[in-house]
C-alpha cells in the first residue's frame, strides 16, 4: 500500500500543501523555541566558563545561598589579611585579589545603560582574567581604565579618551586600553570597565578589602585537596569553591532569569501544535470524505479495512515527516526571530550562533510526526468504515457524518457538562487549579457540541451578510450545512483567539489590580525608581540623601527589597522605615504596629497570616544569605491590599535589613513635597538633584502607579504576538477547508454560474463563507477566553485583591482580528471559485 500512498499524496499535492505548511509552522515554533533555549544556555555557560578558565578555585565571603530568583547575592568583602593567609597555604601557586561591583559608564556626559550589568572590576592579567588586552595596555595606575571592545565600538571611545564611571562617587578615568573577553569583543548586554585593584577598591569604597580571591594551584596537588586545605584553614566564615562550580552557579542564576521565557515559549509551542493538529485533522477528514468512492473502489478490489486505515496513516506519516524536517530546519531562523521578538518586549537573551542539539532535532521531528499521525487517526478510522458497495452508488452527496446515536449524543455532551460543572465549582469556591481540567473539558465539549451549535450560530453571525444578497445567503447556508466541518475549522481559530482573550483579561485585571492598590496605598507625591529592570531596584542610597536635602521636599522614605529562603522556597521582603513611611503611604495594620519593626521584628500580610495561622507574637524562621537562619518575631499584620502595593507580603525595618543583607540599594524612594510646593516644581528639583544618577526615574504618583504591572504588560505583549502565529495557522485552516470545499462543490458552483450567478457573486459567496467561519470562531473564542479569564480572576481574587477588568478595546481588536483573518483566508479560495470555467464545472461528474 506504500506505493498507493505515495501516489496518492503526489496526486493530491495541492490538497496537502497547506497541511504540510501547518506542520512546518508548528514544528518551526517548537524547534525554534528549543534552539533558542539551548543557545541561550550554552552562551551563558560559555560566558561563565570563559571567565573562570584560568582559575582553579575562588575564595569569597560565606553565604547561605548563592542566588535567589536569578540574582546572585552580594557578599561582604574579604579582609586584606586573608590574601596573605591563602597565599601561604600549601598547594597554592598564586593568589589574585579582585575587587568588583557595579559602575555606570558615562561617555561625554551621557550614561551608557546596558540591558545587563554595568561591570566594574579590577583587572587581572591572564591566566586569572578572561579579559585580554587587544589595544593599548592594562590599567596599572590610578585614573586609568580599560573598556571592552564592544562597548568602546558602540560608544565611539578610543584609547586616550576620558570617561566617567559612577559608583557612589564619580571618577574620571583615562582609557589606556581596550580588552576582549575570551574570543569575543565583550560580554553580551554588559559594559565592562577594568581598573587597577587600588582604584577599584577606592571606587567601590572597599578600603583594603577585596571581593574575592582567584587562586591557582600547584601541579602536585589536586584542586580538591587544595580546596580542603583552604577550607580547613579559613573556617566557615569563607566560601571556598572550585572555579568550575562557581561558574556553573553563575550560569544557573542567569539561566533562571530566562525561566519564565522558557515557560512562555513552551506553552505557546503547545498552543501552535494543538491548532496545527486541528487543521491537520480537518484536512484529513475532508480529503477522506471526498475520496469515499475511491476508497470504496479499493475496498471492492480487495483491500482490507486495516490496509485502508494504514494507507491514510501512512499519508499522515509522510506529510508529518516532511513537515517536521522542514520545520526543524527553519527552527534555526525562528530561534533568531524569537530572540529579536523577546528583546522587543524587554527580555534580553545572549546572542550568538544557534546551538542545534540532537535532542532538539529528535524532539521536533518526533513531535511533528506524532501530531500529524494522531490528528489523522479519526479520518483513518472513518476511511476504514467506508463500505465497498459505496463504489457502486451514483450519488456523490456531501457526507458530513451520520446523525449520532442517542448513546453517542449523551457521551458527546459529557465533556461540556463536566467542564461547565468544574467552572461553576471554581466560581463557587473550589481550588483555582480545578480550572485547568475544567477549561479543557469545556473547550473539548464545545467542539463536540459544534455540530449542534454551529448551524444556529452560523445562521446568527451570517445574518448581516445574508441581508446583503444571495451570495451572503448561500454562504450562510453552506456554513450551516456541514456543521462538523465548519466547527472544526472555526475551532482552530477560536482556540487561538480564546487564548489571546484569556491572557488579555487576566493580564489586564492583574495590572489594574496592581496599579489600583498602589494608587490607594502610596500617597507620595513623587516616587524615584531605577529605570533599569533590576530585581532589587538598584538606586544608590545616596539618591535618597540628596533628595531629602532639598528644600522643596518635606521628607523621603526608602524601600529596599531582598530575597530570603522560606523553608524550601525563595521569598521576597521589603525593608522600610517605620518612622517616615506613614508620611508617603497609607498602611492599614490589622494587628500590632509598624513602629514595632524597630525592635527587629517582621510584619506580615493578612493573607499570609491567615494561610499560616500566624499571629502577633509568633516567631518565624527566615534564612538569609548573609546570616543564615534567623528567628524573627511577628510584630504586626498588614492589610493584604497595602502589602500588594509594596510588592511583598513581608516587611522589616531598614536596620533589620542592613543586619541580614550585604546589598544596599534602594528599590524606591518615596517623596513628599514640601507644603505649598507644586508637585511639578518638586519633581524638577528632584530631577536636578539626581543628575548624577542617570538611571533614577522621577515619577509622579499616577505615573508610578501606572508602571505597576509593566512586566505583566510585557509578557502579555510577547504572548499575544506569539499567539498570532497560532491564529495564522488557524487561518490556513480556513483557507484549506474552503479550498477543498470549493473543489468539492465544483458542480454546484457551475450550476450557479449557469443560471446567471456572476463571477463577482461567486467570489463574494466564498469570501462570505470564510468570514462567517471566522466570525463564528471570534464569537466562540471571545466567549470561551473572556469567560475563562473572568473565572480565573475570580478564583485568584480569593487570595489576592483583584477585580475582573474587561478591556473592551482589546477584546474588540480580537474580534476584528478574527474578521480580518476570515477575509484574508477567503481570498484564494474565492478567487479560485470565481475563475472556475462554467462548462468544465457542469461537465464534472
Amino acid at each position: 500500500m506504500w506505493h498507493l500512498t505515495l501516489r496518492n499524496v503526489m496526486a493530491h499535492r495541492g490538497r496537502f500543501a497547506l497541511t504540510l505548511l501547518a506542520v512546518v509552522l508548528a514544528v518551526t515554533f517548537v524547534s525554534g523555541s528549543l534552539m533558542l533555549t539551548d543557545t541561550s544556555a550554552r552562551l551563558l555557560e560559555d560566558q561563565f566558563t570563559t571567565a573562570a578558565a584560568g582559575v582553579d578555585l575562588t575564595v569569597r565571603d560565606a553565604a547561605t545561598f548563592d542566588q535567589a530568583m536569578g540574582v546572585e547575592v552580594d557578599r561582604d568583602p574579604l579582609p586584606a589579611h586573608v590574601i596573605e593567609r591563602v597565599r601561604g597555604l600549601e598547594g597554592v601557586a598564586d593568589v589574585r585579589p579582585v575587587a568588583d561591583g557595579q559602575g555606570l559608564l558615562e561617555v561625554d556626559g551621557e550614561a551608557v545603560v546596558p540591558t545587563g550589568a554595568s561591570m566594574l572590576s579590577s583587572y587581572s592579567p591572564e591566566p586569572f582574567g578572561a579579559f585580554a588586552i587587544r589595544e593599548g595596555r592594562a590599567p596599572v595606575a590610578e585614573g586609568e581604565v580599560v573598556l571592552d571592545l564592544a562597548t568602546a565600538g558602540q560608544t565611539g571611545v578610543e584609547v586616550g579618551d576620558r570617561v566617567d564611571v559612577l559608583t557612589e562617587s564619580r571618577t574620571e578615568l583615562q582609557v589606556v586600553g581596550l580588552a576582549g573577553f575570551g574570543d569575543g569583543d565583550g560580554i553580551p548586554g554588559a559594559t565592562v570597565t577594568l581598573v587597577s585593584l587600588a582604584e577599584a577598591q577606592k571606587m567601590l569604597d572597599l578600603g583594603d578589602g577585596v571581593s574575592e580571591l582567584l587562586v591557582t594551584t600547584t601541579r602536585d596537588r589536586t584542586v580538591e585537596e587544595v580546596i580542603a586545605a583552604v577550607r580547613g584553614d579559613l573556617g566557615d566564615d569563607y566560601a571556598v569553591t572550585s572555579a568550575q562550580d562557581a561558574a556553573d552557579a553563575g550560569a544557573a542564576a542567569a539561566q533562571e532569569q530566562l525561566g519564565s521565557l522558557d515557560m512562555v515559549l513552551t506553552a505557546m509551542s503547545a498552543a501552535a501544535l494543538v491548532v496545527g493538529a486541528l487543521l491537520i485533522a480537518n484536512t484529513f477528514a475532508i480529503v477522506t470524505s471526498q475520496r469515499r468512492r475511491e476508497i470504496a473502489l479499493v475496498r471492492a478490489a480487495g483491500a482490507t479495512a486495516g490496509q485502508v486505515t494504514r494507507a491514510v496513516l501512512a499519508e499522515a506519516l509522510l506529510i508529518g515527516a516532511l513537515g517536521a524536517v522542514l520545520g526543524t530546519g527553519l527552527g534555526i531562523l525562528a530561534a533568531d526571530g524569537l530572540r529579536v521578538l523577546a528583546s522587543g518586549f524587554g527580555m534580553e537573551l545572549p546572542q550568538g550562533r544557534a546551538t542545534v542539539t540532537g535532542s532538539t532535532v529528535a524532539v521536533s521531528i518526533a513531535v511533528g510526526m506524532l501530531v500529524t499521525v494522531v490528528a489523522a487517526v479519526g479520518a483513518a478510522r472513518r476511511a476504514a468504515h467506508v463500505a465497498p458497495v459505496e463504489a457502486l452508488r451514483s450519488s456523490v452527496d456531501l457526507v458530513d457524518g451520520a446523525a449520532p446515536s442517542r448513546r453517542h449524543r449523551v457521551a458527546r455532551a459529557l465533556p461540556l457538562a463536566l467542564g461547565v460543572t468544574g467552572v461553576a465549582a471554581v466560581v463557587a469556591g473550589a481550588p483555582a487549579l480545578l480550572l485547568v481540567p475544567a477549561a479543557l473539558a469545556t473547550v473539548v465539549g464545545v467542539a463536540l457540541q459544534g455540530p449542534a451549535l454551529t448551524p444556529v450560530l452560523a445562521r446568527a453571525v451570517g445574518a448581516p451578510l445574508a441581508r446583503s444578497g444571495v451570495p451572503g445567503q448561500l454562504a450562510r447556508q453552506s456554513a450551516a450545512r456541514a456543521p462538523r466541518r465548519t466547527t472544526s475549522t472555526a475551532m482552530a481559530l477560536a482556540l487561538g483567539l480564546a487564548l489571546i482573550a484569556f491572557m488579555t483579561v487576566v493580564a489586564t485585571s492583574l495590572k489594574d489590580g496592581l496599579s489600583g492598590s498602589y494608587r490607594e496605598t502610596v500617597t507620595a507625591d513623587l516616587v524615584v525608581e531605577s529605570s533599569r529592570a533590576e530585581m532589587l531596584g538598584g538606586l544608590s542610597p545616596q539618591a535618597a540623601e540628596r533628595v531629602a536635602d532639598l528644600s522643596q521636599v518635606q521628607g523621603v522614605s526608602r524601600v529596599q527589597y531582598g530575597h530570603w529562603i522560606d523553608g524550601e522556597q525563595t521569598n521576597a521582603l521589603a525593608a522600610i522605615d517605620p518612622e517616615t513611611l506613614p508620611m508617603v503611604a497609607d498602611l492599614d495594620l490589622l494587628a500590632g504596629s509598624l513602629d514595632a519593626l524597630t525592635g527587629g521584628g517582621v510584619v506580615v500580610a493578612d493573607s499570609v497570616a491567615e494561610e499560616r495561622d500566624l499571629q502577633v507574637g509568633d516567631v518565624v524562621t527566615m534564612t538569609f544569605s548573609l546570616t543564615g537562619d534567623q528567628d524573627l518575631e511577628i510584630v504586626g499584620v498588614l492589610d493584604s491590599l497595602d502589602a500588594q502595593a509594596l510588592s511583598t507580603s513581608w516587611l522589616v525595618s531598614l536596620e533589620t535589613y542592613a543586619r541580614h543583607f550585604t546589598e544596599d540599594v534602594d528599590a524606591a524612594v518615596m517623596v513628599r513635597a514640601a507644603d505649598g510646593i507644586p508637585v511639578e516644581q518638586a519633581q524638577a528639583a528632584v530631577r536636578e538633584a539626581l543628575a548624577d544618577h542617570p538611571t533614577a526615574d522621577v515619577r509622579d504618583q499616577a505615573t508610578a502607579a501606572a508602571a505597576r504591572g509593566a512586566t505583566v504588560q510585557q509578557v502579555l505583549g510577547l504572548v499575544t504576538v506569539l499567539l498570532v502565529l497560532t491564529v495564522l495557522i488557524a487561518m490556513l485552516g480556513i483557507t484549506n477547508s474552503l479550498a477543498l470545499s470549493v473543489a468539492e462543490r465544483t458542480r454546484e458552483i457551475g450550476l450557479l454560474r449557469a443560471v446567471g450567478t456572476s463571477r463577482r457573486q461567486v467570489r463574494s459567496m466564498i469570501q462570505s463563507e470564510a468570514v462567517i467561519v471566522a466570525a463564528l470562531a471570534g464569537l466562540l473564542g471571545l466567549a470561551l477566553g473572556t469567560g475563562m479569564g473572568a473565572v480565573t480572576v475570580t478564583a485568584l481574587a480569593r487570595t489576592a485583591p483583584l477585580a475582573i477588568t474587561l478591556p473592551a478595546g482589546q477584546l474588540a481588536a480580537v474580534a476584528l482580528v478574527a474578521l480580518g483573518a476570515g477575509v484574508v483566508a477567503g481570498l484564494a479560495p474565492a478567487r479560485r471559485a470565481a475563475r472556475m470555467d462554467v462548462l468544465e464545472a457542469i461537465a464534472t461528474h
Partner: protein
Amino acid sequence: MLTTTHPAPAAGPRPATTPAPAAVASGVVKTYGHGTTEVRALDGVDLTISAGQLTAVMGPSGSGKSTLMHAMAGLDAVDAGSIRLGGTELTDLSEKQRTLLRRERLGFVFQSFNLVPSLTAAENIALPLRLAGRTPDGLWLEELVTTLGLQDRLTHRPSELSGGQQQRVAVARALVTRPEIVFADEPTGNLDSRHGQALLAFLQRAARELGQTVVMVTHDPTAASYADRVVFLADGRAANDLTDPTVPTVLATMAGLEQPASRAEA
C-alpha cells in the same frame, strides 16, 4: 389551464401565431485542440429555433449537440459564425454580459445536479430572480408550483426530494423568470419512464399553451417525440429536420443518419 389563468406576457418577443425565430445560429464553428488532435465539434451549423415551440436536438454521441446547446445558451464561446438571440448577437458579448443574459433571458434544466443542495426547493426556484435582485412574481410562482405539483415540497432541501421532484423544481426555476428560451440538457436522463414522461408532458404544455420556447437536447426517441420539431445533428452539422415527430419516424431518421456517417468515416 396555464393559458386560462395566466396569459402570455404581451410585451414578450414571442408572437403566439406566426412562428418567428427565437434564436438563430448560422455558420457556427467550434473546434477543440490543435493540429493533429483538433476536433471540429461544430462545423458550420445553421439552425433556427422557432418561438413558442418545443424543439428537440438529437444526434449520435459526438455529433455536437451538447456543444451547440452550450454555445446557443451563452455558456461557451464559438470560433466562428453568429448566434442571435432575439435582437442580441451572442458572439459579441463579454463573459459578464453572457452571465447576465443567462440570468435574465434564459432558463436551464440539466440532466442531474440541478439544484443548490443548501437551498430549499422554494429558494432554488427563486434563485435566478434573487441573483438579479428581483422579487418573484407571486402569482406566477404559485401557478408554476401548483402545476408542477410542488406545493408540499417547497420547504424541503434537494436531498429530501425524489429525482422526479428535483427535476420539476429545476423546471420551475427555469420558467420563473419567463425566459425567452429554456434549454434542457437530457432533462429526463436520470428519471424512470413514468416521471420522465410527466416532465416531458409539462414541457410540451409549456410550449403549446404558454408559448414558451424550449430547446431540449436528448438521445431518447421517446423524449424527442414530445417535441414540435426535431433537429438532427451529425458530425457537427445540421443533418435533418422533422416536424411533428413520432417515435418510429425519429428512429427511422436516426438510422438513416448513422449509415452515411459511418460511410463518410470509412
